[in-house]
């Protein structure tokens, strides 16, 4: 046994709910095998043992929201061979990017009695706005099987097999009846990247965009369909402005309905 030769994995957290890194601990059937294949060198949520970098793979969860974090991400990049962002916060700024559309000082005074104790940036931004990112894994939360696939790919020197087509493709494969056509429920599926397994339509509700925009999404055409469903401009704005609000195609579409 030579633990030195195992690739070193680190998990880093920025502004987030912890759900995406929890996905790693939620790999109940795979966790011990993963721990055999890689050296979990820095994963504070799971262990108090910390091994110094550099790391072969860094998984980064969360968005950049404080001056301190904007510095910290550069240190992490310097000590990582591959840097992979996990989840909507790290790839698009997350739900906390809703502040980007407002004045953050108003937000601080709503939540905190003494705003002077709070240090925060005006915007919540994705990791790729600050450093080079090797791979972005989408989802709010990520799909744990996609995470295992990405880890496998990087450990074996191949490209991850993560499709960029829309949720519609997953619905068709599952044989779901289209919720928008059949029930008139607004659905972001046509413009949202696959990955969740089309859970919402399977449970008879419209997709609400956890995995962010698919490649080349036609958001304005979908917004027109929403108008046919009698959604108000405000409703349409809110629909595009949620967990991936600051991803460009969704941001632009929501701003068109302000």
């Amino acid at each position, binding site marked *: 046994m030579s633990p030195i030769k195992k690739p070193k994995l680190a998990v880093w957290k920025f502004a987030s709910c*912890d759900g995406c890194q929890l996905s790693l601990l939620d790999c109940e059937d795979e966790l011990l095998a993963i721990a055999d294949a890689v050296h979990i060198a820095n994963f504070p949520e799971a*262990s108090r043992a910390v091994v110094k970098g550099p790391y072969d793979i860094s998984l980064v969860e969360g968005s950049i929201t404080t001056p301190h974090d904007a510095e910290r991400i550069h240190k992490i990049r310097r000590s990582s061979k591959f840097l992979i962002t996990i989840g909507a916060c790290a790839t698009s700024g997350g739900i906390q990017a809703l502040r980007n559309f407002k004045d953050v000082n108003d937000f*601080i005074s709503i939540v905190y009695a003494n705003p002077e104790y709070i240090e925060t940036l005006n915007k919540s931004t994705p990791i790729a706005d600050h450093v080079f990112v090797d791979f972005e894994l989408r989802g709010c*939360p990520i799909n744990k099987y996609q995470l295992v696939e990405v880890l496998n790919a990087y450990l074996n020197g191949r490209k991850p097999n993560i499709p960029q087509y829309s949720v519609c493709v997953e619905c068709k494969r599952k044989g779901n009846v289209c919720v928008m056509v059949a029930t008139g429920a607004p659905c972001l599926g046509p413009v949202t990247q696959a990955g969740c397994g089309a859970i919402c339509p399977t449970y008879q509700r419209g997709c609400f965009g956890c995995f962010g925009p698919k490649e080349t999404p036609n958001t304005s055409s979908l917004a027109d369909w929403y108008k046919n469903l009698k959604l108000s401009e405000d409703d349409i704005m809110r629909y595009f402005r949620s967990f991936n609000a600051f991803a460009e195609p969704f941001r632009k579409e929501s701003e068109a309905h302000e």
Partner: protein
Amino acid sequence: MPLPSRFGRRARRMNNRVIKVDYLARVEGEGQLLVKIKNDAVTDVKFSIIEPPRFFEAFLRGRHFTEAPDITARICGICPVAYQMSSCHAMESICGVKVDGALRELRRLLYCGEWIESHALHVFMLHAPDFLGYEDSIQMAKDHPDLVKNALKLKKIGNEIMILLGGREIHPINPKVGGFYKVPTKKQLQGLVEPLKWALDFAIESVKIMAGLEFPELERDYEFVSLRHPDEYPLCEGYIVSNKGIDIELSKFFDYFEEQHVPHSTSLHAVVKDRDDYLTGPMARYANNYDKLTPKAKKAAEDAGLPKVVLNPFKSIIVRAVEMVFACEEALRVVDEYKMPDKAYVEVKSKAGVGFGCSEAPRGICFHRYEIDDGGIIKDARILAPTSQNQKAIEKDLRQFVENHLDLSHEKMTWQCEQAIRNYDPCISCSCHFLNLQIERE
């Protein structure tokens, strides 16, 4: 190399040190600990939450009331159901809707799933390694492979309930204001019976295992705050009680409790007005609701010699195990009695007003207050996460623990201080609107 005895005596006589942990491990989120000791007296204890603020209460303003369960779930990846249930109940109370019968039972079942998953994660993967002297559960798995494998199996069963009822284990998509988007068939639920029977047996065994651990000494006269319900061990709803006389409807919450904003934390500290800190979570629920435990949970506690009120916070690990027994037993009951309802939800029409929701997250009460307008738009939101409520109790535990154990080596003291924080299963991501350990000995 041991220090010369003269040196050792001197060090003991003038106990001046700083215990510092910059990034507390095996908790959900980012926290720090700082303890300063001067002349054998603890001069400062700070349990700081350095999690960046995310401003949920601010950006909930202007959203539609039906979005609250999906948005507030994102406060916490570990206990999203707590946020979903509290917000759903608050919205339903504003709109004058009561969700009952099979739909209410399914909500309880979903919550049992979250309790099993979250308690199994904390008891075995995050907390047990402290007692057995491992840095993490993966190291622990080398010496105790069956324990860790069974723990993962138990956790998975909790998650299976979440997947079936919620659509997925993290941020479930199926719960909504008024009920669910889609309800399972009886046959689908019956698939849970065999796994849950195994889970119940293993949970009972876990109570024995946890009761056999060695516990550091610490007891405090806590004010235990939890929900209480006339018919059941509380999960989704109830009124708020404490062992020191609080017995109130949710709407009176802010008459009795207040939040304080302190410089060293991005999470607000909650206290009982004109009194002090309080404790919420498994120890409080258990003390206030012992009579409502299910038969096997009660028997498991009795067999393990656990008193009806537990005052040593390190023993919270046993109480959590007892609650796992409860959650498995309760889940089996719901599955057994389930009759599929005709409709997956009750229609909810928006109505202007103010409403409250409170549910028992695995780590304590999760309190929500909302104000919405005629059109169903949220005008104001206030959310109290369990960990922010426990912050002050954690600091007091630490102070007393350090004062009573000044003879411990720096390394052991630091570790046991971390352990004292992990007693609370703190969920720091939640509490921020919320952790990092430093012990300074000057």
